[in-house]
């Protein structure tokens, strides 16, 4: 496997992209999960599907668009969807979560229309839906690396504002944190990460990489920084194990990455339960 990575450019692209995504997806995912907005990633990935399907359809119909990388339109659709979610959350102040199913349905609807119009896209679309080891190009890797820089820079410079807004939005607003602006940038960045991740994990599974490592991390962490580090470590482990398994089994990596995350989550839950039981038993023994 190691030899193959050195010999084949497509494997280098897939692994490097995977390593980068393993950092940035759970990093942003933590802020999404603690704000109880885990379904936002799902909604945006389905909007990205509409963009990808639209791009693939247009590339069939319009000759000069045939060379256009579908990731661009997928990302543009996700960014548009993220801004619409923010608008809708403002319109439904008492039912903010309603914005998510509205955008999710719209994304699937538009995607289904383009797929039907094009009479299916075969393996191209399957690669986008479930990820692909072989489909990541150098250009895709470049996009992923650029987006990673934006994400890490954003979290580095706005960490304290993101924490304050995530922990207590009302307090953050009272203390003068620029909530609206930061939230809008955050949503755009989430959309870009979804766009960047879909080549490796696939549109249908990208939200899992943002939420499952975080779900495991918050079981272990005592602090927010700890939760962030655990999330990235678990995300990275899931991506690496998932990619290696996908390579040997010759299947789409999205499924193996997500199933690895699920297994890690289950192991963490089992470990925590056993640990708590041991502590309780020891406490009872000490009392006796």
């Amino acid at each position: 496997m190691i030899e193959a990575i050195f010999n084949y450019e497509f494997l280098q692209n897939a692994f490097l992209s995977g390593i980068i995504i393993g950092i940035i997806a759970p990093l942003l995912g933590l802020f999404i999960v603690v704000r109880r907005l885990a379904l936002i990633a799902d909604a945006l990935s389905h909007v990205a599907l509409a963009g990808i399907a639209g791009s693939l359809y247009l590339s069939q119909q319009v000759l000069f668009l045939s060379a256009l990388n579908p990731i661009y339109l997928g990302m543009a659709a996700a960014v548009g969807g993220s801004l619409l979610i923010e608008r809708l959350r403002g319109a439904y102040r008492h039912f903010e979560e309603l914005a998510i199913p509205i955008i999710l349905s719209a994304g699937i609807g538009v995607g289904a229309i383009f797929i039907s119009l094009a009479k299916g896209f075969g393996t191209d679309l399957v690669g986008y839906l479930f990820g692909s080891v072989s489909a990541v190009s150098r250009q895709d890797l470049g996009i992923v690396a650029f987006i990673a820089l934006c994400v890490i820079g954003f979290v580095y410079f706005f960490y304290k504002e993101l924490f304050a807004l995530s922990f207590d939005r009302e307090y953050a607003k009272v203390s003068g944190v620029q909530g609206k602006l930061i939230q809008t940038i955050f949503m755009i960045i989430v959309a870009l990460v979804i766009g960047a991740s879909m080549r490796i994990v696939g549109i249908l599974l990208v939200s899992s990489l943002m939420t499952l490592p975080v779900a495991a991390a918050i079981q272990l962490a005592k602090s927010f920084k700890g939760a962030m580090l655990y999330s990235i470590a678990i995300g990275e482990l899931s991506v690496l194990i998932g990619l290696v398994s996908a390579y040997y089994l010759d299947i789409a990596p999205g499924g193996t990455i997500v199933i690895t995350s699920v297994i890690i989550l289950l192991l963490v839950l089992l470990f925590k339960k056993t640990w708590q039981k041991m502590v309780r038993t020891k406490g009872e023994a000490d009392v006796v």
Partner: protein
Amino acid sequence: MKNTIIECKDVSFTYDHTDVLEHISLEVKEGEFWALIGPNGSGKSTLIKLILGLIKPSSGSIKLFGEEMSSFRQRERIGYVSQKSNAFNSGFPATVLEVVRSGLTRKTGLFKRFTKRDDQQAMEALKIVKMDPYHSRPIGELSGGQQQRVFIARALVGKPDLLIMDEPTVGIDQQNIASFYSMLQTLNREHGIAILLVTHEIDIVTDLASHVACLNRTIHFHGVQSDYKKMDDIDISNWYGHPVRRVHQSDREAER
């Protein structure tokens, strides 16, 4: 001469064609401890939201530290403690120190990261509320009273001149309420922080606050504590809308 830090002039607020607050005029000066009392639904929390700038009045004007609300930027001069249950996810993975330090977000400034000095400041705020031994504990593992102390430390960490609290004792057991209020008195008397406390516990305020404002859609009384104590329970019952009997400190001591 003390400076005015909150100035509400003829403030009214209408929501969904209903008059929630009418013609509110109130002045809070530095170092004062105000208790804002009134029955449920009297508009206390709405008035606090107006003062904090979370909502805009339908008419009238609000000034903070002498500045119109629309142009007020010195947010770090105000510490705010809300009803804990409304704003807090107890499963949030954060330590007490991380939560308190977040009170310095605005003061530290955009693009800047927290420093060791910010951590020290957070520890000092925790010492004031006697929660410094818990600084590395996850916030969700503390009791209701301890969490509320942490939120007060978060409000204090930026060294505010004014502390606004909206029913801060919600979720705190009776045993801890007395020590909680005595801590507020210390903050006011020893640290000189002006306090605006929203509460429905009309007995405690008579012993604690320097000034009292009675609200039920409009201000029925505002003035110093001694004048409030002289008021007849029947008058208070009239604007409260149901019979009210205040128990003063002297009555409580006699009962013992």
